[in-house]
């Protein structure tokens, strides 16, 4: 009997090759649903110019904005509390994130530990964009932060790098490809609607990924790792089953 899983994975890679060649694919797809996600990924990468901006709005368009998912990684009474990272986050929060550092490592020439002040001194981008949640709701908010490509330049990311991974204080792992990593609107945001980023919205720093659905914009980022490999973390934990690419 032909294992169904590998047959469908094969189908997925055929679909991938027919569109963009087989070298640039996240090898994470083993079902019919993932095949369609991969087709969408390839089609959108093919059709949409790499640096084309997501729509931006005016201050008058800013709307009410829910905070969902993890709204406090330092609260041990919540079900999403992580015993390893939670206490660390709580300590940083009590100190006003003064000793907090963003770790950048992996396929970079100069790994770095950047403080919030160091991030604020780097070139800043402010954008008023639409947050589109997979649940069906949307909100408009203003985000300020350092473009990810500035951090990649600063740390000397390898030209052969293919993915940028993010690790959070609520113990999530996610990654984006280099098209998204170098997109001008992909920022690590420390400001929201003119103030410091609130805890509920992912303090001290969260990712903004404006051309994908909201769940890809990770909150509470603690570490950035540049890699040449794709690790299929989505088979584990709560993220299991959610499409890696969510441009639709």
């Amino acid at each position, binding site marked *: 009997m032909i294992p169904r899983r590998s047959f469908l994975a094969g189908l997925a890679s055929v679909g991938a090759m027919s569109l963009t060649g087989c070298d640039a694919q996240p090898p994470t797809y083993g079902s*019919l*649903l*993932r*095949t*369609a*996600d991969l*087709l*969408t990924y390839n089609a*959108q990468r093919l*059709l*949409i*110019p790499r640096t*084309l*901006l*997501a*729509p931006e*709005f005016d*201050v*008058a*368009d*800013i*709307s*009410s*904005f*829910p*905070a*969902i*998912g993890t*709204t*406090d990684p330092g609260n041990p009474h919540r079900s999403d509390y992580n015993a390893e990272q939670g206490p660390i986050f709580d300590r940083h929060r009590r100190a006003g994130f003064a000793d907090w550092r963003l770790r950048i490592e992996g396929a970079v020439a100069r790994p770095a530990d950047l403080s919030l002040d160091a991030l604020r001194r780097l070139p800043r981008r402010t954008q008023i964009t*639409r947050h*589109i*949640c*997979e*649940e*069906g*709701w*949307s*909100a*408009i908010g*203003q985000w300020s932060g350092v473009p990810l490509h500035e951090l990649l330049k600063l740390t000397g990311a390898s030209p052969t790098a293919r993915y940028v991974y993010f690790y959070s204080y609520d113990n999530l792992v996610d990654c984006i490809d280099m098209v998204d990593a170098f997109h001008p609107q992909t920022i690590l945001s420390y400001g929201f*609607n*003119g*103030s410091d980023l*609130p805890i*509920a*919205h992912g303090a001290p720093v969260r990712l903004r990924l*404006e*051309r*994908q*659905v909201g769940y890809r914009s990770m909150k509470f980022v603690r570490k950035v790792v540049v890699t040449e490999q794709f690790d299929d973390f989505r088979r584990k934990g709560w993220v*299991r*089953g*959610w*499409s890696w690419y*969510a*441009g*639709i």
Partner: protein
Amino acid sequence: MLPDEKRDLSKSHAGKMMAGSMEAVAIAERRPAWIRWTHWLIVGSVITAMISGITIFVAHPRLYWGQAGNGLIEPWVELPIGPNYGFSPWEDHRAFAIRPDAITASRTAEPFNQNAWARSLHFLAAWVFVLALLAYLGTALFTRHIARKMVPSRAELRWAAIRADIVDHLRLRVVAGHGASYGLLQKASYLVILLVVLPLMVLTGFNMSPALAALIHPIDLGLQTARTIHFLCFAVLILFVIVHVAMVVLTGFRRQMRSMITGR
């Protein structure tokens, strides 16, 4: 919604074969393969899209107009469907200094949400649907199928004719094989579904994609407006499917199904 059935013996092989028979009934024109294939591909993908679409919708059964709509914004309508109806577990409300009439609040519980598989299944169905619809509309326009079979003649658009067709339908006095062409209401419903509802479904679907938003910004309806129209199209489509299937049953289920499957 009758399929056309031409009874033209002169052109029919079957007619010649049954020449000795007393009931020389023959169907001259087979339903072409491209109609049958696209019809069933659209049926399969639309059913899949409806099941996954309802699953996605009940995660947030509220509809809004404009760009922004969420649990902290008054909806246009909230449908009393599913476990998330009336779901409003918010705490810690704060206004934004930059725009004090906009607020934030933290959600204290997780809603019912099966969108991991439902979204992926919805877009799998959407791929099949869009390709089948393009194939259908392309062929139907190129072969003048729509112009010949669905655009009403001037005579049909007289008030008396319209009224007669409505009265026939209301009395369920719609018989199969009464002529070579579709009825007026049938033509109108096919035209509205094929040229308005289904394309609008696709366009409003595209309008909700954050990646495509960069491309279609100039014709952006507003994200929540697009979602609401997407839902209203679904409601019209459900109505159409009910009436369509009812008409198939009323006009001879076995014969109609055979015609749409084998063409005869």
